[in-house]
């Protein structure tokens, strides 16, 4: 498999706090990669660095062999990196269809007008929101807003999709639906990085995992190996004891 994303030696500081410290890892095209670590370990910061929301203080991020570190997020998004947010972000005063159209209208090959509406409805159906096109996003439940967010991200036709705790807060049935949805994305050839705490989902979806602790990468490898890594175990346990 070829390398889709290469993170090398990335550092990000906030004032005196180093949120990410010389992190390096590789994402291969077509894989679903789990990004793990205790709370505050720098996972979301890493996502923000990849999506361009934050600018790294040092290091490089190459997407399809092109350097994207420090580029503005809309350019990265147009290049094919889409994301969801840890705290869900939808445009409340717009309806569901418009929210998805937001993903379609500004990508590299934009869709607009009735073509965009049809595509938006198709994506809504795919995430399980068929028939809800007219509902204002603000009136949706948290879970539906998450689905909406994913539909918007898919609208960008991403080659790399960043999911930030997208499965958090789902009940058992919803979780199963969510897992199979993500799996189907992988089958469509979308590469996924998912920050997640739901271990069952990770075991079932991710072939490989990267684990962070206190801003540094402490393990990278196949999911089974990583889970057994003593450093990872102690990071989690230590975190729980703290």
């Amino acid at each position: 498999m070829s390398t889709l994303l290469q993170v090398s030696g990335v550092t990000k500081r906030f004032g005196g706090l180093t949120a990410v410290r010389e992190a390096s890892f590789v994402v291969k095209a077509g894989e679903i990669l789990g990004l793990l670590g205790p709370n505050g370990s720098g996972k979301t910061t890493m996502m923000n660095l990849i999506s361009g929301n934050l600018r790294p203080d040092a290091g490089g991020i190459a997407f399809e062999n092109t350097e994207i570190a420090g580029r503005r997020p809309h350019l990265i998004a147009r290049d094919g990196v889409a994301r969801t947010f840890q705290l869900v972000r939808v445009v409340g005063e717009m309806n569901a269809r418009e929210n998805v159209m937001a993903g379609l209208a500004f990508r590299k090959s934009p869709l607009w007008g009735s073509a965009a509406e049809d595509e938006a409805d198709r994506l809504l159906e795919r995430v399980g929101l068929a028939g809800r096109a007219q509902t204002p996003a603000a009136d949706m439940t948290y879970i539906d807003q998450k689905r909406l967010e994913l539909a918007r991200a898919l609208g960008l036709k991403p080659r790399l999709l960043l999911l930030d705790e997208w499965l958090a807060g789902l009940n058992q049935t919803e979780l199963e639906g969510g897992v199979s949805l993500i799996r189907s994305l992988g089958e469509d050839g979308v590469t996924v990085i998912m920050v997640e705490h739901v271990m069952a989902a990770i075991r079932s979806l991710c072939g490989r995992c990267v684990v962070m602790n206190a801003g540094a990468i402490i393990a990278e490898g196949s999911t089974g190996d990583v889970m057994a890594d003593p450093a990872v175990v102690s990071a989690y346990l230590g975190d729980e004891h703290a």
Partner: protein
Amino acid sequence: MKNSPAFVIGAGAILFAALAFVPFYVDGYGLALAIGIASYTILATAWALFSGPTRYISLATVAFFGVGAYTVAVLGEVLPWPLVMLVAAINGMLLALVVGLSTLRLAGIYFVIFTFGLTELIKQLVTWYEVKITRTVGRYVFLDIDQQTIYWQLLALAAILFLVGYLIGRSRLGFALRIIGGDETVARHVGIDTTHAKVALFVLSALFMTLTGAIMAPRWTYIDPAIAFNPQVSFQAVIMALLGGVQRLWGPVLGVIPMTLLFEYLNANFPNYFILILGIVFMLIVYLLPQGVAGAVSSLRAWSRRDGKSVEEAR
């Protein structure tokens, strides 16, 4: 059918064509009133064109208005009128471009006061330039442009503004701005160049404000920085737009007309208590019409239908 572009644009064209006949039916005061309404309609609508979706409250309206007026004061007797307007337009857009690029990263109140400060700075610099270089503050504008012509120019400008506003509202640019207004982070992450979009609209909105100033200038014969850059104009435009409602293109005009008429009514009947009564009326409006006039109209419509389509309708 009712919302089809052809229908809306056609209806708008008929409306503006009808309004063009106003000067033949009213006297000098009626015309003056129509000019007042038309000029503030443009200012408030142009303001809302940018500030409505993005929620940036700009107090720089009069900076552009004043630049337009001053361009006329300086060049009005030197160049032919269309050329003066062109220069004014270029000045206003250049200023807006500089301002837009440097300030749109400020948020909330910081942006509000920045735009106010900027207007004052421009006023001070124009004054200083006139004092030091031309040795005269206050310019005389003797142009033979009669009141009807001023009105027609304003009307034409308003028509263009509404057409442009309508088209933007249906365009990807308008859509981008609504997303920016809703959540700028989202906007950036769906591929919108937010700086571009905001600056483009800011410049466009400034263009209309500048031209309004240029058209109005010959009305006053005499222009000095205090007259051209009177911050009251900015405040009044904001207030009227907010009162009318900024979420819809036709919202601000619903603030402009009643406010202008209210001003006139109070001024005629209570010249000595004008300010006091205006203040009281103003507060009452704020309490009784929280969503602005347009909001009230919309909710009234929604309420009278009760068929759940009100959300679509509100767009």
